[in-house]
């Protein structure tokens, strides 16, 4: 698996994603909804006279952004199975290991870039809205590092969804399964048992909200990576062996 060929495959996968209307719309949706949500949260905070900083508001908006990144992570693997495209992909790149690596790198690049841009635009929107609404001066906000953590968190959520999508191949079960895990099951379990901290989405949230007694940002990210590697290896093993 030479690097040149991996580069070509990754470029080809990126080209596929760029020309897929659903990906473009998802990225635009993620960025726009991030802006709308930070504006709403900033305005609501200003209404109540709460002392919220632009960074704090942006971090509050991160849970709302998760759904977009789940969708963005699911699309690269599942869109190929909607028609005949997957066979064409295998014809052009018969080495399945190479294909899945290129696909994962492309998905990672798209998700990471969208997360960075999304966090950046949300921060800008929060800052501008705070100036426009004459919000009260902010409390201390812990500096810019949690923002990088938030972008990394959304990237890892996207990567987790990509692993699930590689495993189940179809859009609806991958999307419904990952969304239910992240948005419903994990908060419900979080209210019931402290062991819920080991779920991937709760562990990775430590990257921007270091509020857990056991997991630090670093170990939280490692736990989430462990889940991704676990699901991803099963997915890749199946991907390499099964019929197209």
């Amino acid at each position, binding site marked *: 698996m030479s690097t040149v060929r991996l580069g070509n495959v990754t470029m080809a996968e990126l080209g596929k994603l760029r020309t897929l209307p*659903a990906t473009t719309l998802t990225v635009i949706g993620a960025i726009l909804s991030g802006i709308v*949500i930070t504006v*709403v*949260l900033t*305005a*609501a905070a200003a*209404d109540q006279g709460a002392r919220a900083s632009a960074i704090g508001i942006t971090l509050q908006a991160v*849970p*709302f952004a*998760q*759904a977009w990144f789940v*969708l963005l992570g699911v699309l690269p693997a599942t869109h190929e199975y*909607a*028609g*005949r495209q997957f066979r064409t992909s295998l014809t052009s790149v018969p080495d399945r290991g190479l294909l899945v690596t290129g696909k994962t790198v492309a998905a990672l690049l798209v998700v990471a870039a969208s997360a960075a841009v999304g966090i950046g635009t949300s921060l800008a929107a929060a800052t501008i809205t705070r100036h426009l609404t004459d919000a009260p001066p902010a409390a201390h906000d812990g500096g810019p590092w949690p923002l990088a953590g938030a972008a990394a968190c959304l990237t890892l959520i996207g990567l987790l969804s990509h692993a699930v999508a590689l495993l189940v191949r179809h*859009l*609806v*079960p991958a*999307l*419904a399964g990952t*969304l*239910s895990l992240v*948005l*419903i*099951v994990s*908060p*419900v*379990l979080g209210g*019931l*048992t402290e062991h819920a901290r080991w779920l991937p989405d709760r562990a990775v949230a430590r990257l921007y909200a270091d509020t857990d007694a056991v997991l630090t940002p670093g170990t939280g990210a490692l736990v989430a990576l462990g889940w991704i590697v676990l699901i991803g290896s099963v997915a890749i093993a199946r991907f390499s062996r099964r019929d197209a």
Partner: protein
Amino acid sequence: MNAWNTFAAELRKTATLPAAWSGVAVALLGSAAITLLNAISIRAALAAGRPETRAFTSPFEAAFAAMPLGTIGAVVIGVTIFSSEYTANSTDAGGGRQITTALAASPRRVGLLAAKAATIVVFVAVIAAVTLPVSAGIARAVIGEAGTETVTLGEAVTRCLGGTLYWTLTGLIAFAITVLARSGIIPLIVLIVNSSLVSFSLLLTKLTPLAHWLPDMAGRRLFDGLSTVEGGLDAVPGALVMGGWTLGLLIVATVVFRRRDA
């Protein structure tokens, strides 16, 4: 085909759809699992003599806390019953979509949609009839007499019926959006996100009280006991508003479906 045959055909189609059964599994097994965990943790708190660390020790409340999973099950059924019709076959088998066959067999489009909507209602009602007693039974078996049951049988039945109505209406809204969009992505995202703690509707209520009239916010008092947000409509007017949204969306979906190409 007459109306009954169309309905029987749709019921059978849905019953052979793996995705519909995964919706059933999410609602039934998911609720049972969450209830089991909840009940075990309540029993542990009671055994340790610290019942005040739990919001409630009632077995019924422990089972009712799993209600959001049933919503997901209803959404999955409402979406896949229609999105499955648009999934293209393998190109080796002609690459056709099931919707063309369905319309050839029952050309009256309104009747077809009505049969699908009735199928969703039947599926959700059956899920509720199985899930709620099973979950309540699990909670009662695990917690036993140690917990204090604060909910009378009459209240429990009313709340179960309210929750079932919410599930059904959400399933029908998911169905209507899927008919309009011909794709399951939008209804899945919108409805699962709005069933969660990071609901867009909930966020909008911070901006304007009008957001309390959105379907999911209006109907949430049907889950009496789970409501955490002050304000908004009461259970009965809320249910009427949510029902109105459902009916409106179904009518729009029917008009669009009648007029466009399959």
